[in-house]
């Protein structure tokens, strides 16, 4: 459902911005084709985002999946949208 993806997207983006701010990281402009390793966030930042998203959305697709890790921000959002469905 489109609406779900949109709300998941908003939640994910707000956590990226929040964690970047907390961790004093300069965040690249957020777009679907942004490669996560180039986002300005290191693995600790991403780990924190994953933990906070689990609290916010009730899912941790990184724990559940046996598929590939997401490469782009778009993959990342899709992973959560699929898991939260």
């Amino acid at each position, binding site marked *: 459902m489109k609406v779900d993806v949109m709300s998941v997207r908003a939640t994910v983006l707000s956590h990226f911005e929040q964690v970047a701010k907390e*961790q004093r990281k300069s965040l690249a402009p957020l777009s679907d084709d942004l490669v996560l390793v180039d986002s300005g966030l290191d693995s600790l930042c991403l780990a924190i985002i*994953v*933990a*906070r998203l689990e*609290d916010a959305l009730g899912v941790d697709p*990184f724990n559940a999946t046996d598929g590939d890790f997401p490469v782009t921000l778009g993959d990342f959002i899709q992973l959560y949208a699929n898991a939260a469905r």
Partner: protein
Amino acid sequence: MPLADAGALWPAVSAAGRLADRALWGAGASVTLGELVRGSSLGGRLEELRGRSVLIATSDQLTAALALVELDGVARRLVLGPPDLPSEHLSHIVTTAAVDALVSDGAVPPTSAPGVGVVVPCRPRLAPSDAERRGGHQTEWILLTSGTTGPPKLVVHTLASLAGAIREGHTLAGSAVWSTFYDIRRYGGLQIFLRALLGGGSLVLSSAGEALGDFLGRAGAHGVTHISGTPSHWRRALMSPAAHRIAPRYVRLSGEIADQAILDHLRACYPAARIAHAFASTEAGVAFDVDDGLAGFPASLLERPAGGVDLKVEAGSLRIRSARTATRYLETPGPPLVGRDGFVDTGDMVERRGDRLYFVGRRGGIINVGGLKVHPEEVEAVINGHPHVRMSLVRTRKNALTGALVVADVVLKAAADPANGRGAELEGEILRLCRDRLPRHKVPVAIHFVPALPVAPTGKLVRPDA
């Protein structure tokens, strides 16, 4: 009163004098030491226990205390069964310590200790006894360590090793009234029991079923002057309105890391007291105590050993060599208690900052965040420094990217209940404090406000990851 070499407990207690004025106060009964001169808690059956390996398995601390006084020097071995002794470990203890007699107040039915032929009941109501007290045995004192899993280890001490840290300075002309949140069958409590008896004082015993406020009220009513517990015991005590019913001259902490916050809170609550935190463990004995009001200990202790205790830091952990360390484990597989160099590895990790050393946590309790180590206790020390925090527990949270992250459960002081809408604000303040003081991998990713944290019967915080 220093213990003469190879001396037994009763002669040393007698020599401290004023027996009629000194008491052991339990929750339900009390006994003066004077009554023990012509009385026995063992119903006149003391001689049946001579030369035996005796498991003291009483529910009540007072009966245990009386049995210890009577049996040191008489029994070959005294095994101190803690009140929460799991029955499934009983046969392991009986076998390992070659127990052939049981002193019981009914807590452990004799049938649950199979093969133990002699069972002697112990009561706080003394029976007349005209028998001359005579020792003869250099009794081994066996303490049980409280592992989180598996059977307890049996640690061998002597009265001399247990009493080695008790100095003249503690006697205070015999007027001291000691008390402890600990059970006296654990190392920390046993230290207080021996300080009271050997130093010419009295002792207020806690009781497992007793409310904290009632215990503090009772200690206050007996005029407690010296009182000890773990930092967790003290944090709970300071949450109680009854904290002000005692006015001790000496407050002692041991068994866990004393962080700056708890030292400061105790200073504020008991401005007239000397506040000391001791480093001691069942295996390593009492190494030192520090009473300058600051967390950690001066690095000079490493270079200038005091009181016959040598300290060193190896592979990050504190090692101790002294006459107060335990002798050995009874038949426990694994590394020996005392290393080849005579040092006991405490497993307590220390870190030097300037001219002071700080305890940062247990070797086994490390959280690994993406290859970087976090000791829960070092994060707790920072969180506990927030003025609204009473206590905290830092634990691991699994994470697919870094293996683990750090989260914190936090108990607020009553006035700062998160229910009054300040939860988010306080969480932000605590996290900012952590970010200011700690490297980023040590900062909790989440703060959960909880009403209470579980404290084990040992007086230590229950650590789920340990």
